[in-house]
């Protein structure tokens, strides 16, 4: 079953309070050397049939209309190699 992945990230200029919370927690747990954390979302879409350009275009439309909010987020679409 082919899988298409949509990664959604807050735009660089948008504050990411969740990422900041994770960044703050890391040193308290003894992890050092991390200077920034941004938290996003990953969607794994299982598809029927072949992943054609049309299908990828459809996935991009899904990402634009529902999976992301283009006002505050960017997204990337990638195809997961089948095992």
């Amino acid at each position, binding site marked *: 079953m082919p899988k298409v992945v949509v990664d959604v990230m*807050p735009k660089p200029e948008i504050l990411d309070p969740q990422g900041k919370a994770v960044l703050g927690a890391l040193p308290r747990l003894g992890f050092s050397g991390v200077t920034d954390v941004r938290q996003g979302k990953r969607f794994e879409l299982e598809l029927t049939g072949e992943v054609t350009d049309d299908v990828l275009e459809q996935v991009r439309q899904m990402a634009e209309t529902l999976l992301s909010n283009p006002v505050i987020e960017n997204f990337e679409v990638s195809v997961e190699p089948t095992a």
Partner: protein
Amino acid sequence: MRVGVVTFPGSLDDVDAQRAVRVGGHEAVALWHGDHDLRGVDAVVLPGGFSYGDYLRCGAISRFAPVMSEVVDAAGRGMPVLGICNGFQILCESHLLPGALIRNDHRKFVCRDQRLRVENNQTPWTSSYAERAEVTIVLKNGEGGFVADEETLDRIEGEGQVVARYLDDNPNGSLRDIAGITNDRGNVVGLMPHPEHAVEALTGAGTDGLGFFTSLAAHTFA
């Protein structure tokens, strides 16, 4: 006037909003998220809460509820629409209002009596207020930080689309202390504080929120 209040799965403040509509002198009409029907109302309130569990993003699923396509069409024809808190988030996700609302910058849920200044008293929801009126209205949100790009912020400031601004402390990191905005046409208003909880002296800090519900009549019949 007949004022519809939409109930989504996870709405919390729909009954309070209905009550505020009645206290404001109107007939409250319950609307259901799953219906393609506004039941002939003259205005619509999208209430606060956690519609669809705030899954994905606040308001992101509600935007596609059947009733919302009717609300978007009606708003396009000039019907007054007020979104409070989660309702504001839904209006932004629906692109009826510019910008978006993100998690509070301090990451905590905030619940308090909030001082505000009404910056635009020309909308159908704010015409009862004096120019630059300062009011206290309860605020309760976890994701109330209003954000938009600089160009959009400059535009809405320039066009008088900022409806209310936080005074004293900014409670959630909203850019330029913005608490509420309106669209180009001025009929759609989104507001993070909860005027429907500030309409009776018995409960809450006072009755400063009542103006949002009495404005409708003043505006329409002026």
